[in-house]
């Protein structure tokens, strides 16, 4: 009986993250991912096809507007593939960021009725979002090989590179949840910030090299851009999938990973501190 002793006390440390409980509830994590699976495509005819359509349509629009009309550089890559690869990193970040921003708010019904480690729902949703990422990735590969048929000069870079994708995903989860958690925690009491969160998505999109390559930025500003962690992530996908990019270097990697770690821990601690008394404020 003693093995299950729970101590409830006031004023716990900010760093008490309740990670011990996390393992006890790992079955819950899988069931929540399964729930997201089951419920997101219920009563749709095309199901996951919509993810494919969204990726194709998004890239097509970018190709027409930014490639053809605005004539932005695509770093020598075919425009359609350039945007597809940019969207890959961006979309996953955007969905994880969105999960983080609503982590407390969207789980109110559960959080106010039963205790379980509060990190489980957002982490489950972030894992679920990988499913959409994989669909997008297969769209990219299909498009890539169709391009290759028509223009044989395009060669797929080394297959080893693909093995780094999980690392990029991990960094994206840490970054997206980190920023999201900070916003979610701070907007519990004052909801103003949740308004900002939506606008911020647009801003981050244009501050990141999704629709333009980093090589287009004047060189003296490039080291400044390195402090946007997404620059390294998105350019790395291009390096892995298209062969070359400017920002997938150590000078970009260090600030990007360093900042991600810092943001993630700040987010984690704030989120954890806030969830303890969250239900008192809503």
């Amino acid at each position, binding site marked *: 009986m003693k093995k*299950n*002793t729970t*101590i409830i006390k*006031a004023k716990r440390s900010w760093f008490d993250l309740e990670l011990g409980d996390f393992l006890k509830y790992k*079955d819950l994590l899988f069931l*929540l991912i399964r729930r997201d699976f089951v419920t997101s495509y219920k009563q749709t005819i095309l199901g996951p096809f919509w993810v494919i359509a969204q990726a194709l349509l998004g890239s097509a629009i970018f190709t027409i507007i930014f490639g053809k009309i605005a004539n932005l550089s695509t770093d020598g890559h075919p425009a359609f593939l350039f945007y597809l690869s940019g969207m890959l990193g961006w979309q996953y970040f955007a969905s994880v960021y969105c999960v983080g921003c609503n982590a407390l708010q969207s789980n109110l019904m559960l959080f106010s009725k039963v205790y379980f480690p509060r990190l489980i729902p957002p982490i489950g949703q972030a894992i679920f979002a990988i499913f959409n990422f994989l669909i997008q990735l297969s769209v990219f590969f299909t498009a890539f090989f169709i391009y290759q048929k028509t223009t044989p000069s395009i060669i797929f870079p080394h297959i080893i590179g693909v093995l780094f994708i999980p690392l990029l995903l991990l960094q994206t989860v840490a970054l997206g949840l980190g920023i999201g958690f900070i916003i979610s925690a701070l907007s519990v009491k*004052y909801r103003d910030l949740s308004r900002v969160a939506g606008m911020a998505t647009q801003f981050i999109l244009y501050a990141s090299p999704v629709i333009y390559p980093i090589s287009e930025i004047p060189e003296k500003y490039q080291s400044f851009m390195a402090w946007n962690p997404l620059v390294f992530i998105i350019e790395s996908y291009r390096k892995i999938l298209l062969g070359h990019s400017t920002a997938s270097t150590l000078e970009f990697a260090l600030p990007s990973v360093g900042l991600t770690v810092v943001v993630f821990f700040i987010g984690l601690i704030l989120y954890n501190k806030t969830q*303890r*008394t969250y239900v*008192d404020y809503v």
Partner: protein
Amino acid sequence: MAVIEVENLSKHYRLGSIGAHSFLQDCTNLGRSIGLPFKNHKKNNIFTALDDVSFNVKEGDIVGIIGHNGAGKSTLLKILSRITEPCQGNATIRGKVSSLLEIGTGFHPEMTGKENIYLSGSLFGLKKKGIDDCYESIIEFAQVKEFIDTPVKRYSSGMFVRLAFSVAAHLEPDILIIDEVLAVGDADFQKKCITKIDSQTKSGRTVLIVSHNLSLIASLCNKVLLLEKGKVLKYGETDKCISKYLSLNDQTQFNSFGTNNFVKNIKLNKQSAAKGTFVLKINQELLIEFNMNDLPHNDILPVLSFFTENGHMVFHAIPQYHDFEIFNNCKLSLNIPANFFNNIIYSVRLRLHTINRKIGWNKDNIIYENNCLFMFSVIEDIKNNKNRFGKNDSINGQLRPIFKWNSIENQQK
């Protein structure tokens, strides 16, 4: 050994709305905490939901938590279920806890019954294997076998509640925390829940239950925690706590008009009713006595009316015709036989009517009314009452008089 130890638990809430003003306060609080010379706010906008609450629960205890709305019952349960954190104090809980603050927590309407069983079970901390083991029994208890692969949004509300409760009933924790969940569902369902909880308590489980249903508390619990304005008013024997709680009602719900001095010295079985609410054993007579003084009229008819806790009229006790003349300035007594009431709670109203012998009495000529002259709780030793013929759960009805049954000679002889 104490499985739950609560020490000096307090919880405060800030009153008022959250907006620009409270943001300013937060900023000055923050400023003061890092040493800036801001003025301290007056703490008059703090609401104390729990104030220095301490108690111990032993293994196998079934503790009822009672108190008025806002007494802090739900806050206490929320803290013990780790949904929110106390502001001061601590609590130690030894054993696996399941808290049912709601029926159907985590159920998703789009998912099938089976998927929901697993999801809800794991939310309460069960492992997948543990749910596998009791899966069949959950379905059987809920009686939804043929619908188990149908999304629960197509369930009737009865089926939904049965399934949800069934999951909750199979959690098998060491400590079970229940908040008012029994208040939902129809009478049949409530009965089923109570039987289930009763069987759980027999297996040595510790239970904390919040309810306004005092007769449920009286029949289920061996201890009661009485909270009032965030403080523990009394903790201990069920009867004494319930009677203390009811005596609070007397003061707070006191509602009368006319001069109070008309009626004095109310005694129940020779004890003063002013002391607190009376607890009557089911096989005990009830003797009600009171004095009537300084009445402005000579022809007065006193009527005692008995209501259930929910306000349903049970009966009027009206004096016999021939003796009403003697009622002025005298001591009255009324005797109600044993084995007449059910084991529930009654409140008693006294009205004094003036009588016109030609017209009779009606509502227009009430000179005194006390809507809660006293309340009393009828308790019963359910296990040893032979008149129940072994029935362990509640017997419906506002009264349960025992009449004399006679066996008449077999006529076919």
